[in-house]
């Protein structure tokens, strides 16, 4: 295990991810997609479990929710990312795919502290200490 793997928090400049953009960052031994959706931050695993597409490059929008035949019920506005490779969709809040809530991405905590985006891995932060600025 590298020293970085033991880090429970990483941070990046807020200015590198202005509203309406996204990026990816290597942290916690993996790649994390970070989204700034109108000032609200989301961080999920960057790798689509379908074919490995980079989710940080995906369109952020809403989706058509389950509905009766021939009705469109739009929802989850600005809360869904669509993988740029084949189109799997994920709820940015929960990491769940829209077709099967049992399939979900790892979700990371993202908050702003002193103009920095601070990411933490909920699973690690319970047991480990440490921080890394990027």
């Amino acid at each position, binding site marked *: 295990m590298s020293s970085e793997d033991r880090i429970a928090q990483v941070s990046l400049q807020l200015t590198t991810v202005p509203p309406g953009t996204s990026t990816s960052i290597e942290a916690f031994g993996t790649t994390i997609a970070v989204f700034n959706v109108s000032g609200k931050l989301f961080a999920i695993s960057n790798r689509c479990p*379908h074919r490995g597409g980079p989710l940080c490059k995906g369109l952020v929008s809403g*989706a*058509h*929710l*389950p*509905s*009766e*035949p*021939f*009705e*469109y*019920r739009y929802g989850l506005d600005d809360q869904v990312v669509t993988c740029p490779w*084949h*189109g*799997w*969709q994920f709820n940015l809040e929960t990491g769940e*795919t*829209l*077709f*099967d809530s049992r399939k979900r991405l790892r979700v990371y905590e993202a908050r702003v502290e002193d103009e920095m985006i601070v990411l933490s891995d909920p699973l690690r932060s319970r047991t480990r200490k440490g921080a890394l600025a990027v």
Partner: protein
Amino acid sequence: MKIIDSDVHYNYRRLPDLLPWLERAHHDFVLYSGFGGYSVPNFPWMKESGFSRSDAVPSTGGPPGSDLETLKAQHLDAFDIEYAILNGDEILNVSAIPNPHIAAALAAAHNGWLIDEWLPQDSRLKGSITVAPQEAELAAKEIRRAGNHRDIVQVLMPTGAPAGYGDPRYHPIYEAAVEIGLPVAIHVGADGCGVNPPPSAVGYPTYYPEWHALLPTVGWTHVVSLICNGVFEKYRDLRFHVLECGTAWLPAVLWRLDAEWKANRTEIPWVSRLPSETVRERMRFTTQPLEEPGTGRHLTQVLETIEGFESMLMFASDYPHHDFEGPEQILRRLPGDWREAVAHENARSAYGLKAGAAEAEPAGASS
């Protein structure tokens, strides 16, 4: 082993045989139109030896499938068939007729003939009522008129159509079928005939074997259409049978459908679960024409990739057509532990047939 045959064809000797059951308004059309009488649009692809077994021509004349005694001796008795589901023959081209009113009237006459002249003759016979899908409200009316007969077990329509059967124009058919409690079936027929579009996306095949090899493609187009249009979500009690469309294509289509649903479900949000799960629960398929790989075990290897397919597959012979397959021909090619289910159990459940009821039913009884 008990055998229920899910696809046995019966036919009239001549179209005017249906006149006693046809609205008077259409008699002249049948008797005098065209060159000396109406002909239902026929397939443009011709097989030199004919579409039916030449050994099935009744000694009393008429086309194969037109004589019950021949059918009994050559098929029902010969193979000890417990039940045979009678499906029309030439009438399966009814969806190729331009005039939807005449098409509906001919289908209704055929159904009347079936109910009055065929079904009372032998308690092993169960029937499918044919509907002309061109005008779905007329088809629905016919289902409500004729579908309640005790020996009618299915609504049947040809695969030939100008749109996938999930299209909303066809929904009145499903509504009526669910109301009456009958499954809906499609059977190869009328593809590329009359007013129907070509049976392939690149136009009309040139040769009969070309058409016949492509035969499953229209059927699977309808399967995909039904799923994507949410028909099974809209009609929660609808059961759907796909007859004579082959089987080995199904794994590939289901794999593709499931993958599409995961990736592109946003355009069809009404499809509430994996298409393969819906197909497994709500659709049934018949064996003939069972694909014939050079190495026999390859067929079962393919079919076994469909989870639960042993409960979705029903034996069908297609008697008296040229590509008929008897029970032994079919069942020995399937896994041993599938045979009871495919031979009779699945059809018994799909058509609501009781074990031993054939012997107990008085011939000619009707509701």
